[in-house]
Structures are given as structure tokens and as C-alpha cells.
């Protein structure tokens, strides 16, 4: 066995071990989130976001922003401060691997239509394919709880919400009214 073969074998073994450790860490940490976000992130509560099957890098960035205080929240900022980068990465891996589980909810047809128009006009450039796309690590909005989306967009357009949301969302949402927000939330919630 050549020196380089030994080296790559050792590398493979160490990566396997660290990957196993990371998956163990991920499921252990991910399980601690389930009390609020549902089993494996499949939230059953209509104002808690479904986090199963979100893009890994989106979860990682969102947790880091909560921790640094650059993403507004009521409680997530306090919780995210409890974890280091390695732990956040392991959690993000865990939830990204989970099957995406759209919420079962009721819709108002008039709101859906209004929401679709607003989506095409204002949101589609980033949230492509009716909000199903995960391109560029975008959070998929399709099948998400309307209750959560409503609150999220509502806080984006609230000037009293002190912590800063990702800038683009603050600008996009600033001149939406409550009815627009509710319509958009309904539209994305209805998409599969």
C-alpha cells in the first residue's frame, strides 16, 4: 500500500467517523426542537413553521442570524445562542434530510386568487415556481402553514419590530397591507 493510499484511507475513515458523529449529533439536537416544531420538524401548530426538508444552508444561516440578532424573533434568538456553529450545522443537516411535509389546512378561494396575483407581481423573482423552488437555498413557501407565513410577513412590515429581518423582505413587505399579507400566506400555503 502506497503512502498516499494509506493517507486517503485514513481520510475516508476519519470522515466516516465524523459524519456518523455529526448525524448522531444532528438527530440528538434536532429532537430537542420537536417540542415546538413537531416530530422531525413537521409542525402541527399553525403558527410554528414546518422546518423538515428546508435547504441545509437556509437553516444554517437562519440559526446564525437568530444567534447574532440580525433576524427578528420572539424566542429563537435566545435559543440559538445556546449552540455553536458545529451544532447548528448538524441540526441543519438533520432537518434538511427530513421529508418535506406540507400542512393540511383550509383556504379561502378569493384570497388565493388575490395572493396569486401578488405573488406574480412581487415575489416570483426570488420565490420561483409558486414558492416551491429551493434554488439559491431559498426557503420553500409552498405547503407552509398560512398562520406562520402571515405572522412572518406581518413582522417584516412592522416598523416597531426592532430586530432586522433579511433586508429584501423588509423592503418587499413594507407597502403590503394586512389583507395582502394574508392573501399571499394563503396562496403559498395552498401550493404543493
Amino acid at each position, binding site marked *: 500500500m502506497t503512502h498516499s493510499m494509506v493517507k486517503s484511507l485514513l481520510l475516508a475513515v476519519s*470522515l*466516516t467517523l465524523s459524519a*456518523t458523529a455529526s448525524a*448522531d*449529533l444532528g*438527530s*440528538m439536537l434536532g429532537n*430537542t426542537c420537536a417540542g415546538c416544531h413537531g416530530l422531525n420538524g413537521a409542525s402541527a401548530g399553525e403558527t410554528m413553521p414546518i422546518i423538515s426538508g428546508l435547504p441545509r444552508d437556509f437553516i444554517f444561516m437562519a440559526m446564525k442570524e437568530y444567534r447574532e440578532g440580525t433576524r427578528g424573533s420572539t424566542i429563537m434568538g435566545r435559543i440559538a445562542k*445556546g449552540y455553536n456553529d458545529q451544532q447548528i450545522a448538524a441540526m441543519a443537516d438533520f432537518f434538511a434530510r427530513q421529508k418535506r411535509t406540507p400542512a393540511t389546512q383550509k383556504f379561502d378561494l378569493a384570497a388565493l386568487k388575490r395572493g396569486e396575483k401578488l405573488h406574480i407581481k412581487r415575489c416570483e423573482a426570488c420565490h420561483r415556481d409558486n414558492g416551491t423552488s429551493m434554488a439559491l437555498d431559498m426557503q420553500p413557501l409552498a405547503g407552509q402553514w398560512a398562520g406562520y407565513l402571515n405572522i412572518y410577513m406581518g413582522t417584516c412590515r412592522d416598523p416597531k419590530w426592532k430586530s432586522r429581518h433579511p433586508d429584501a423582505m423588509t423592503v418587499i413587505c413594507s407597502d403590503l397591507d394586512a389583507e395582502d399579507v394574508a392573501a399571499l400566506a394563503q396562496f403559498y400555503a395552498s401550493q404543493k
Partner: protein
Amino acid sequence: MTIANRRDFLRLLGSASLVAWGIAPRRASAAAKAKVIVIGGGYGGAIAARYLKMGEPEMEVTLIERNKRYVSCPMSNEVVGGEASMDFLTFGYDKLERQGIKVIFDTVEAIDPQARTVRIKSGKTLNYDSCVLSPGVDFEWGDIEGYDEAAAQIMPHAWKAGPQTVLLAKQIQDMKDGGTFIICAPDDPFRCPPGPYERASLVAHYFKRHKPKSKIIILDNKTKFSKEGLFKQGWKQHYEGIITWHGGDAVKRVEPKTRKVFTEAQTYQGDVVNVIPNQLAGKIAHLAGVVDKSTGWCPVDFATFESRLQKNIYVIGDATESPMPKSGYSANSQAKICVSAILARLRNEPLTEPALTNTCYSLITPDHGISVAHIFELKNGKLSLVPGSGGVSPMDATPEFRRLESIYAHSWYKNITTEMFG
């Protein structure tokens, strides 16, 4: 084999997840043939049973629970304050049974840690390899003179949800306008540290609308309490002149017939009296010999939640002696670490260093929620808070912030109970 690029690495990560301990199943092993008994089907036990079965679907998991229907203590103050009905708190075990968990509705009469057996009231004796106890709390009857189980029919504790919750809610509804509701709060440590103060808040909310001349007095041996700043700010905002808290005033004696409460300093006349007695680990823990007699609680190894006093018996939830608050979320978090440890041991695999969390919401009005979060890490065998993490909601937050927390409280409840029973 070399790791060529990020995609290969991620694939490796993906395949590794299939063999990770935790909840990923695997082929028949010693764990699959093991028998695990979980005693107590609440916030700790129901989660333990469910995660054991998810982690090892072939394993025989038995849940022994006294009551056919579970009544949740979290959110029960909403029933006391007339905002919700008992249906909101009540759950069945049918979905756990459908997942292959053997649910036995019976009372445990004896546990033999040496023989590893559990005897139940119907006469059966069951064997186990590992036994998880989630016994909750019992009361220190006798700490307050005149307060016993009979007195609790007149002055309800309502600290175990069920008929006691209904009784207290009814007394409050039947009380005359202008009456006095007295809450006697327990000493630390006890189940649900913010509970007595949330109860005062939600009853005050009810009084304000239906019996505006009524008052609430909290008699408390403690000189500080959970989320104190936030509660006091909320009381000033919503219930000025309705709620009075007397800290450092221990209740010595009660007279159920006259509804009088005696502290060292004074005598109080109540119309409705809620006595929440001091607490200790539930009876089953005493049967199993896992209670430290000097404290009344169960010492455990925090890496596994195995009892420090008996091998192969694990204790989770309110009965444990731990720096974690005695909350539903703590029990949930402890159950998962305990299950991971049991499965790892049965499979002869190493343990992962645990992280434990607690999240707890309280309502001051139905639209004014507050919260606390804790993240614990294990260092040198001790659980300690991760520095700089967690804590309570900010003081002086906007009404919108408080409203959001009241909304999240309900989604939290929906998720944690669905994780247990759905």
C-alpha cells in the same frame, strides 16, 4: 475510496444517517430483542415510549399508565380561568397503541430492581431489561396543618390536572362578585415554577370581565418567583389592584370549613382557596427505591438519566433531581436523551454528549404571552446552562410581541401534544 467533492461528502453524510443511533432503525440486534417498560404516560413517558418504538420497531415497548385518558397540566390554567374546556387538555393512547406500543392501564404495585420485574395491580408480573420511570410528583401532605386529601375536596390543589381542575374552575365560576381567591404557592422545587402566577393572571382576567370587585391574594413562602419581572409588569398593566403577592409569608395552617388560611403573620379569609402543597417525586419512584430520602427527588446520571441508586432504572421528568425546571418540555427533552442512551447501551455503542432544552410559555391574558428558554450542556457530570443563552422574554416589549408569544404558546401546545399522542 476517496472523498472527491462536496456532493460525495454529503452522500456520505446521508448514508451515515441510516446507521446513526437515535431514531434510525437497523437490523435485528440485542436491542430488538430487549424489553423496555415505561411507567407513567405523560410528557416524559409518552415520548419515551414513542421514541423507543421509533428507534427500534421490533423491540417490545410496554407503557403502564393508571388512567385511560391523559389530562395535560400545561394549559390547564386556561380551564381554571374559563377560557378552555377539559377536552382541550384530554388525550387518549390509541395512537401509541397503533404504533405497536403495548399500553397497559393499571397501577404499579411493586418494582424489583434486582429481579428486574414490575408487578401490577391485576396480579401480573412483567420482566424488563430497562425500565423508564416518569412518575411525576406527589404532595407533601402534612406540611400545612389541616391540609390533606379530604381538605383538597374543599380547597383544591388543581396541580394534577383532572377532576381537581374542574373543581377549582367551578368554585371560581360560582364565587360571588367581590369575593377573594387565595392561592397558596409551594416552595421550590415544584412542578411548573411559573404556574401559580399564570393561574392568578388568568383568573384575574376572568374576574375583570365577570366579577370586577373580586380580588386575588397569592401567599408565598418564597421571596422571588419564576418570570417575576414579567408577571409583575403584566399585572400592573392589566390587573392593578386585583392581584396582590405576599412573598416570604409561609402558610402554616388552613381551616377548610371556614376557608381560612393562617400564615405566621396573619389570618386570611378566602371565598375560594387553592392550596398547592410542597412536592416530592411521585409514589412509583419510592416503590422503585430511586428516591434520595434527604431531598425527596431522584438523583440520575445526566448522560443517560439512569438512576444513581438502581441500575437499569431510568427516571425522567418532574421526579428527577436536576437543575432543569420541572416542566413538560424538560420531561420531553430528558425522555429523548434517555431513549438514546438506552438504545446505545443495548447496541453496545458510544453515547453522544447530550444537550437538553426547556421552553415554557405562560399567559398573562389570552393575548399576552411570556416565555423562558434554557439550553443545558453536560460538563463533568453536571448540567449547566450554556453561557449567554436562553432567558426570559424582554421587559417592556410591544403588545404585538406579547400577542405573538401568546399565539406561539398555543402552537407549542399543539406540537408537543401531537408529538406525544398524535
